[in-house]
């Protein structure tokens, strides 16, 4: 089965036009033209006439769930979601940042999305092994079947084979590259704190200057804050101008959380996020 990006784009336009025309929603979060074909942008359609600017191609990998928390509560929003993005929406619903009834989810079943910087296909790395949205109201296209399902954790193999010295050296080198532009937290649909802990001055958790220790503090704490919530969209790694493979650490933590608490992030709106929940019979073994 081959994905027709053009067909998805047409359906996206039709649905967006209808929803805006019937005033079911006040805005549609979708993708629009960028400065060239390979660089589309997130786009907000507010009027039926805006809809013509919507595009969809293999480079549209931005997670639009990131923009949901920007609008006042109660705004009716239609949002185009791919597999990982729909998990982000579910996670935001679990955390009561958005309400299910305010959203119209335009599900996009898709594979073969590409990173605009490297042009490599990102499926195995950051789609959580899913091709179909977990939650949607309208599906734009047919569900993807028959595509080889890759475990989202396969890419961890090389990292997992490192011993602790190698792991430390690996992350030290990566974190030392960090210039603290905070693109990772800003691209993340789950990072909505205001202020972020690293911007706090009382207490001051980490220095503003991009030195190893501040960088380590920022990234480790961010990994902790995303534990059990990261939905594996990979936007943090793609947003990074110096290519720190943040997704590896996030995935590793997500894998550990799944093993320990038996629950993956953003799979059902009935769930509670793993770290604001407990079971009396949680094992003490994980602390050993």
């Amino acid at each position, binding site marked *: 089965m081959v994905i027709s990006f053009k067909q998805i784009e047409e359906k996206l336009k039709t649905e967006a036009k209808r929803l805006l025309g019937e005033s079911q929603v006040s805005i549609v979060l979708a993708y629009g033209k960028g400065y060239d074909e390979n660089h589309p942008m997130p786009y907000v359609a507010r009027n039926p006439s805006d809809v013509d600017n919507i595009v969809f191609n293999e480079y549209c990998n931005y997670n639009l769930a990131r923009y949901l928390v920007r609008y006042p509560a109660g705004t009716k929003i239609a949002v185009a979601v791919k597999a990982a993005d729909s998990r982000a929406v579910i996670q935001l619903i679990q955390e009561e940042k958005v309400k299910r009834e305010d959203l119209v989810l335009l599900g996009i079943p898709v594979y073969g999305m590409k990173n605009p910087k490297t042009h490599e296909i990102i499926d195995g790395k950051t789609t959580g092994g899913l091709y179909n949205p977990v939650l949607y109201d309208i599906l734009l296209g047919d569900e993807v079947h028959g595509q080889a399902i890759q475990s989202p954790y396969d890419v961890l193999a090389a990292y997992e084979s490192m011993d602790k010295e190698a792991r430390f050296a*690996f992350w030290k080198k990566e974190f030392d590259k960090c210039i603290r532009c905070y693109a990772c937290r800003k691209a993340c649909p789950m990072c909505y704190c205001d202020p972020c802990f690293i911007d706090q001055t009382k207490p001051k958790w980490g220095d503003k200057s991009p030195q190893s220790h501040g960088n380590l503090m920022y990234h480790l704490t961010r990994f902790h804050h995303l534990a059990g919530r990261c939905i594996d969209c990979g936007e943090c790694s793609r947003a990074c101008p110096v290519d720190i493979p943040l997704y590896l650490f996030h995935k590793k933590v997500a894998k550990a959380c799944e093993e320990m608490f038996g629950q993956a992030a953003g799979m059902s709106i009935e769930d509670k996020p793993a770290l604001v929940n407990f079971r009396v019979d949680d094992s003490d073994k994980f602390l050993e």
Partner: protein
Amino acid sequence: MSFEPKILGIACNWCTYTGADLAGTTRLQYPQNLRVVRVMCSSRINPSFIFRAFQLGADGVLVGGCHPGDCHYNTGNLYARRRLAVTKKILEFSGLESGRFRVEWISASEGNKFAEVVTEFTEQIKKLGPQIKFKISQ
């Protein structure tokens, strides 16, 4: 000179801290390497405390709380259990020796256990040697 590790203890007010008191009043001997900070509940512990402690030169961090089910606030340590399990994983994944961070449930009546845990943990940290990976060098 032999290596005397600096160990940060974070103890919950109701169980572990009282347990430590008991260890003291019953004149139990345990190494002096532990510096205890009292918090009201193990779920008060922000994981950043632990990262920061390692950055400021702690060789080990020991967290003590009530036994699950005995929390003074009913469920505090049940949340803490999950949270600290993740902290432990994150420290391990980043390449720090996992033996440097330990969580123990010690009740107010377990002065013995407190002394034993501290003795054992201090020995373990001595074996691991000084913690230099996270420590901020000046």
